[in-house]
């Protein structure tokens, strides 16, 4: 018993070191903040349309029986430039339904930006004051959500999506392989 007491510090160290080694080798990202919306019904959506003359965005737009991709972007966001071609490809090759939401972006800035780069969005909304972003648990732009036909959020990407995300999760999701 007394002996055990003297081994205790060593055991504590071993435990801690185990965690550290695990952390270093697991590829864990210490800055990842997780997401609470995944697995839940998509947060409420009630936004004016970005493109003039279109009807406003509502919750019904996310519950159409078909998978929907929701992308928050802004014209002032450099990484959004990087992921943009992937959305264009998704729209053109896969016929995906993509909803774009301009976050904290003036219409006069966002529209020309889309015009310049091409507009892959079936529907586009404007979240000028970032309130919808807050409801969606947004931490910045770009962020992307995959929503299934019943309106449940299945995945949440913080940061630009990559080729790898496209191949490994987004395409299988569109084909109905990811639940």
């Amino acid at each position, binding site marked *: 018993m*007394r*002996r055990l007491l*003297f081994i205790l510090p060593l055991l504590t160290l071993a435990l801690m*070191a185990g*965690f550290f080694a695990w952390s270093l080798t697991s590829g864990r990202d*210490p800055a990842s903040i997780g997401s609470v919306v995944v697995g839940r019904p998509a947060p409420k959506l009630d936004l004016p349309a970005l493109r003039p003359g279109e009807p406003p965005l509502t919750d019904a737009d996310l519950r159409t029986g078909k998978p929907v991709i929701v992308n928050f972007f802004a014209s002032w966001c450099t990484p959004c430039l990087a992921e943009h071609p992937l959305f264009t490809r998704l729209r053109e090759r896969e016929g995906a339904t993509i909803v774009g939401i301009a976050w904290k972006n003036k219409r006069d800035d966002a529209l020309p930006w889309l015009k310049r780069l091409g507009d892959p969005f079936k529907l586009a909304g404007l979240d000028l004051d970032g309130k919808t972003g807050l409801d969606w648990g947004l931490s910045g732009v770009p962020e992307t959500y995959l929503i299934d036909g019943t309106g449940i959020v299945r995945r949440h990407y913080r940061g630009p999506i990559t080729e790898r995300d496209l191949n490994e999760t987004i395409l299988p999701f569109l084909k109905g392989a990811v639940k």
Partner: protein
Amino acid sequence: MIPELGHFSLILALAVALVQGTLPLVGASRGDLRLMALGRTAALTQAFLVLLAFGALTQAYVTSDFSVLNVVDNSHSAKPLLYKISGVWGNHEGSMLLWALILALFGAAVAVFGNNLPDTLRSRVLAIQALIGVGFLAFLLFTSNPFQRVFPAPPDGNGLNPLLQDPGLAFHPPLLYLGYVGFSVTYAFAVAALLEGRVDAAWARWVRPWALAAWCFLTLGIALGSWWAYYILGWGGFWFWDPVENASLMPWLAGTALLHSAIVVEKRDALKSWTVLLALLAFSLSLLGTFLVRSGVLTSVHAFAQDPARGMFILAFLLFVTGGGLALYAWRAPQLQGGGLFQPVSREGALILNNLLLCTLAATVLLGTLYPLFLDLLTGNKVSVGPPFFNATFVPLCAPLFAALCVGPFLGWKRAELWPALMRLRVALVVSLAAIVVAMTMIDSRSTLAALAFGFGVWLIVGSLASLTDRVRSGTLRTLPRSTLGMVIAHASLGVVVLGSVATSSWNTELMHTMKPGDRIDFAGYSVQLERMDEVRGPNYIAERATLAVSVGGKPYTVLQPERRLFTVQRRQVAETAIQTNGLRDFYATLGEGNPQQGWVIRLYLNPLAPWIWLGAALCALGGFVSLSDRRLRIGAPSRKPALQPAE
């Protein structure tokens, strides 16, 4: 050429450290005096070689030698000289070299001032010190070589992070490292004692000055960092419970516990294995801090997470040093026989309570810092552990510690009565209760907790000074041992820190306002006018400067000039707060964003007693140094040497 010399001497230092880390150990176990004597020469040689390497890197920085990669990455020719020099340790490689240098210097100091140590103990301490050095030097040479060349040499460097271009932060790392690395000596002493199987009063007396010196430097280093955060981050906060801060607080807490338990070993021959454990832990926690900060396992530090191999190396090193020490401890410590018996209410009992609470505090910080990591790995749940958590857990634990702190010195060794001790503290008790009442009625009636904490601050000061009353009465204050005087200063200074932090965080006044030149606002009895906005040019930045004229009752009082600096090389902005202090409160102003049309955001704070936080910390370290100069710690030192000064 000179960088290669530096690199070469670093390699030589590694070789010397290898010799120093092995042969004297063999010598000590065989009783071979010649092998043991080798340790001393090797320690001095190693220190000289690392100093040479450090000098070489400094030379590269001072002359802006951009053929050295490290200089390119962290320096710029237009930087002021001070920051060229502090740039040496303002980066990973250079700061590791500084670690290695301080480690080697401490080794040399043991070699020089350790004449009073038995040969075997000294050679073992030096050998263990060298083994730690081997780890650091190998780490430098194999993963973080500061002397790497770049070809072709770029015309100029990338500059140093503007936040680090600050006098406070220039000296913060060296002081902090003196603290961290200083505990390597106590670690070495602990391991040597375990190897010898002997821990006695003499051992405690030898360890104490080293622990004390390391502790003083660590105190100063932490205080300087906190001061820097206070004036550069721009909203008057001084401690943020950030993982990096916590990493420095843990060894400080363990070191403080060590200082106290070592007294029990020295005076009463008890608490031996516990003290040895603390001596091991103080350094282990320093290493843990280094690991956390450099490996990228935590967010605060994730900017360092460039190289997982580096993290693995430090982890392996941490395991080797800490694990080795603790394994030896598990094996040998049970044989250490405790000596003196004592009653729970006694000086020993009070010191044990001190240790218990300090260790709980350290455990709180450790758990709070690492818990998000553990939980994330085990369950994937993300939590944040921030200031409100520590305010709810750490701060309440301080209350019993502070309460007992003043009583302890009045208790006799072995067996004591609580009541007489409290009677001698009755004045302190009354004064601090009065302080609570005053705080409640005159300052802020809403926050009972703040008033209570304020009372504790007063209790610490008056209660610590109370132990001098007998001496004052009998006129024997001059014969007071330095160690006792140091203790009184350190204890009372803690009260100063408490008063400063309570007052500034609970009773500050703030105002933010958008102002255009010519605008005037009233703020806490002062009238503040934004006289003008200027553009100023510094050596490597351009700045917007606001000139705020502060007046009281129509009479000019002071002028504050907060700035926003744009560092041109990095294109980064840094706020330069303007602080006017009268010793009792800080008048603190920062300049926010703005333009001539809408005006500029000006933030004003009145932080009562804020300067006391750092005054108290400085006093605390002073108390340590006073105690360090005690005669008792010099016994055995040759008479020609004026004092035992381990901390060179």
